């Protein structure tokens, strides 16, 4: 286990700018989702990715188009980073027929299999084995693809974490396990539930590399993830990456957050991944006006997705049972 330094992986300005664009897109999308939910425009409930944008962005940037990811209940950011278009993504949150899952899944189950996005998963730790299974497909059919499993510091205490990492290591599968340590398992702080402070030491139990990374440092995330993904693609097996980040919002939008101190949350904003990327870009001579343009473009794209979603039809009630089986079963 090593805590990787930023300097190990400086990014070209053009690359950093691309990553900045994705992070901003996720930020503005999620802020808008939060507003829409509080305005009672979205059914169900939503978990937003605010503050953690660098992780999905940096990791997915290191993937190739055919590669797979599995995601969590907090999955909008992963979907955006993997290339899912905002229109069907937003429409899904509205429960509309034009959504990525035709309104059948909603916020916790956004997916786009055509992009290798194997679904946000409402079961904590649900992706461990699914990612290993996708990696097994790649290995057996010689597809040269890598699977990334995103999960949280809550998920790392599931038994499936142990079962999956053991199996992935035994089989030397092309899979990278990316823990987003946002410090809270739902409403409970990590230190109250977890045996070790540095979560990546658990990799030793499976004979695989483990790295703890500043998950709000986009250059570090991109660099370390790129190394682990390349290693997996070369057939050298799985890795465990622990991205130290922070969840700005509650577990879900509307959470009263009585379990934590507001001041501590505000303090974390000094580590904001987007602001840090901006600082680097500005220091390298990128114009503030250019960054403003990036933010404006994202705002427009998000607003268009809201319009698209609002104008889209709800699914017809007669289709409520669609999709249960590939070969339909008559209900008696």
């Amino acid at each position, binding site marked *: 286990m090593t805590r990787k330094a930023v300097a190990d992986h400086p990014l070209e300005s053009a690359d950093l700018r691309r990553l900045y664009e994705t992070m901003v897109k996720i930020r503005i999308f999620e802020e808008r989702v939060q507003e829409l939910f509080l305005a009672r425009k979205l059914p169900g409930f939503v978990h937003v990715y605010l503050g953690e944008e660098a992780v999905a962005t940096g990791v997915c940037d290191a993937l190739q188009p055919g590669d797979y990811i599995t995601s969590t209940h907090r999955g909008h950011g992963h979907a955006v980073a993997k290339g899912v278009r905002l229109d069907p993504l937003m429409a899904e949150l509205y429960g509309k027929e034009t959504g990525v899952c035709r309104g059948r899944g909603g916020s916790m189950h956004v997916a*786009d299999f055509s992009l290798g996005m*194997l679904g946000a998963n*409402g079961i904590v730790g649900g992706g461990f084995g699914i990612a290993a299974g996708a*990696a097994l497909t790649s290995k*057996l*059919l010689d597809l040269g693809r890598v699977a990334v499993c995103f999960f949280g510091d809550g998920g790392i205490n599931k038994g499936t974490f142990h079962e999956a990492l053991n199996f992935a290591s035994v089989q030397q599968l092309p899979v990278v396990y990316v823990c987003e340590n946002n410090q809270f398992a739902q409403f409970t702080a990590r230190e109250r539930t977890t045996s070790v402070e540095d979560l990546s030491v658990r990799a030793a139990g499976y004979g695989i590399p483990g790295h703890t990374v500043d998950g709000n440092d986009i250059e570090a995330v991109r660099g370390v993830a790129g190394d682990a993904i390349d290693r997996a693609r070369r057939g050298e097996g799985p890795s465990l990456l622990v991205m130290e980040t922070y969840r700005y919002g509650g577990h879900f939008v509307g959470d009263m957050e009585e379990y934590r101190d507001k001041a501590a949350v505000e303090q974390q904003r000094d580590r904001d991944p987007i602001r840090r990327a901006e600082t680097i870009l500005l220091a390298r001579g990128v114009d503030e006006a250019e960054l403003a343009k990036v933010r404006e473009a994202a705002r427009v794209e998000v607003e268009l997705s809201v319009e698209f979603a609002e104008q889209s039809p709800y699914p017809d009630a007669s289709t409520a049972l669609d999709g249960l*089986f590939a070969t339909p079963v008559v209900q008696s």
Partner: protein
Amino acid sequence: MGPDGPERAVDRQMTFGQATVEALSIAMRADERVIVLGEDIGWGGNFGQFRGLLKEFGPRRVIDMPISESIIMAVSVGAASTGMRPVASMSFVEFTMGAMDEIVNQAAKFRFMFGGQTSVPLVLRASDGVLRSSAAQHSESFEAIFAHIPGLKVVAPATAADAKGLLATAIADDDPVVYLENKRIGSSRGEVPDGEYFVPLGRARIAREGRDVTVVCYSVMVTYALDAAKVLAEQDGIDVEIVDLRTLVPLDMATVDASVAKTGHAVIAHEAWRFGGFGAELAAQISERHFGRLGAPVARVGAKHSHMPFSPPLERAVAPQAEEITHAVRTTLAHRARAVATGRDAGRT
């Protein structure tokens, strides 16, 4: 049966286990996406149901898994939804409980909750049923639990031929199929068709034609029902029709309907608990559809609502026996006779 007639039929006698090995090896030769993964499969499996596969297909496709049930299942879901056709094995059905999260929350829901974007073409094989004092954690039957979950298909063959044909179809099917192989009949032999052989899902079989009463059953209970029918024919002159469901989901109610419409009496038999069992669903559906023409309430035979004891006489007291089918049939038919005698016949024609 081939042109060689009886001689060839003798050649084709094999056990359940052998029949499933044949189905698997044919499917694996035809399609490189078919893989097998499970506990202790490399050496052949507890009932010989994987014997020879490792030798022919090698460890890449015949994967000995750690005793990690949830990962056996989750890996199968991940592989299935990215293009493979995994056959997962958990030896005893009780072990599937360690993978219930993946079976219910992932395998059964993937296709539906992702709006039909993906399919999960996997087979989950597990051995169920009572056999020689295996006690509480190796004797049970959970088909009602699986059938209760939308998105799962459930198969429970009663003959070696169906064991082959239903497994072949389950592998070829694009949905998750729970394939339950009963331990007691696992080593029994039967005639099995040669080469590629498919039995469609959702089509019941008339295991014995009869006029007086319909026994609806599946898996090992078909054997018990056939024994019971023989006794009833000889001792009581009762002509029993036996419907072997073969698959519980999809459920072939058309065959059940036709039989009950003919006989006007229904007895349901399964080895699982009677209370809340699959028979309760069958009884409800039969009653809803045939209320006016039933000569007696639908009868059910199943295990007592308890766990399986180890001691042989206690095991026999909890698990349903063939005589209970005989008794249920007699009681059912006597009900009508009593009704006729007292002028309370429901008016069945």
